[in-house]
């Protein structure tokens, strides 16, 4: 067994293997360049999501030291490992409650959850709906490639009916989740869906969502040529992008109930909901000041307002 040599000297932060030479690419300072190239397949859409998010972060006026990214398990879950922010790669489905804890402990942080469809709405479904219900001030980005890519292509709650996957070899017969509908009905105040083709609009949606005070949800329809595309005759990543070009319809404020995605047919993209509602910390503060302190003022002689941290 050969010992892998790792730096014991922390003064120079040498890394092995040596990082690729930095170029002038504009988002390199937001990536952990010592881990690039990433593990995603040729034609995978996750890198586009990371690219658009990085560009959006740079163009926003956020203090990047206070931006935290939390991901779950899966191909999309690996995003946390590539972005050079405080990043947390948590357990399967649990990125959202982790993000909730982070945000409530330090409301100054901007917390982004970046994970996949299986992670967020299958095992993580319960946490998804409750965080949306509470309107916790986090931005949830879901890369929906309709499959469980990392584990080899099993069916996901968003896999369209009739699609083949490794666990639906005769075609999926389960109805698929309509994620914008789920998010809107759970209480999200900003819900948008774009494909990886609509990069500029995706970047703008990221900027809008990051500025929003409350639960924002952005679904990115992305190709997975290796496990989903291959089994469903969708060709390469490029073929899938061409499919998005032909079949996506931009319709802002469409009725989320009509945003289902089938194996063939139109994909409605755009902003579904963009409204204002007090965030969880707002209502918690209100409760403290109005209900709790008022109650205490009645029962105790000492009346003073404690500032919330």
């Amino acid at each position, binding site marked *: 067994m050969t010992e892998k040599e790792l730096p014991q000297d922390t003064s120079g932060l040498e890394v092995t293997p040596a990082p690729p030479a930095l170029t002038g690419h504009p988002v390199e300072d937001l990536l952990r360049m010592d881990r690039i190239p990433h593990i995603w397949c*040729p034609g995978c859409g996750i890198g586009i999501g990371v690219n658009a998010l990085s560009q959006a972060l740079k163009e926003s006026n956020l203090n990047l030291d206070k931006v935290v990214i939390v991901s779950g398990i899966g191909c999309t879950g690996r995003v946390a490992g590539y972005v050079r922010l405080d990043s947390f790669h948590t357990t399967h489905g649990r990125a959202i409650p982790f993000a909730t804890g982070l945000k409530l402990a330090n409301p100054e942080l901007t917390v982004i959850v970046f994970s996949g469809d299986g992670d967020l709405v299958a095992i993580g479904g319960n946490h998804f709906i409750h965080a949306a219900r509470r309107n916790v001030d986090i931005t949830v980005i879901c890369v929906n490639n309709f499959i469980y890519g990392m584990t080899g292509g099993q069916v996901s709650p968003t896999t369209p009916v009739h699609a083949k996957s490794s666990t639906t070899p005769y075609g999926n017969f389960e109805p698929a989740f309509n994620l914008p509908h789920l998010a809107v009905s759970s209480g999200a105040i900003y819900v948008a869906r774009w494909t990886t083709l609509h*990069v500029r609009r995706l970047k703008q949606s990221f900027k809008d969502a990051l500025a929003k005070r409350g639960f924002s949800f952005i679904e990115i329809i992305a190709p997975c040529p290796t496990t989903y595309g291959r089994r469903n005759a969708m060709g390469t*990543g*490029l073929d899938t992008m061409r499919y998005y070009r032909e079949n996506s319809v931009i319709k802002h404020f469409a009725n989320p109930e009509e945003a289902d995605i089938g194996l063939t047919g139109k994909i409605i993209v755009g902003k579904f909901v963009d409204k204002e509602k007090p965030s969880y910390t707002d209502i918690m503060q209100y409760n403290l000041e109005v209900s709790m302190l008022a109650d205490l003022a009645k029962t105790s002689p000492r009346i003073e307002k404690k500032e919330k941290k």
Partner: protein
Amino acid sequence: MKLWRKPLDADQIKVQKGEVHIIADRCKGCGFCVEYCPRDVLEMSEEFNKSGYHPPITKNPDACVNCGLCELLCPEFAIYSTPEEETEKGKES
């Protein structure tokens, strides 16, 4: 660019020129940049990069207008564009 009517100040508008930089060894040959460049600047090359993929090369470099779509669309951070004025001082790819 195809115009229905020629704008009155068409001769005064300067279309920005850009230079595209390709980091060939990062490319995984997905072809998104080639397909969606609005100015048809790129094509897939016959060469192999370090990982065995065919990176793009510029076939019409002068047509680049620094729109930045290739930069945004690349999942591998393997391509970006800069405005042409800066490129003499800019980094080599």
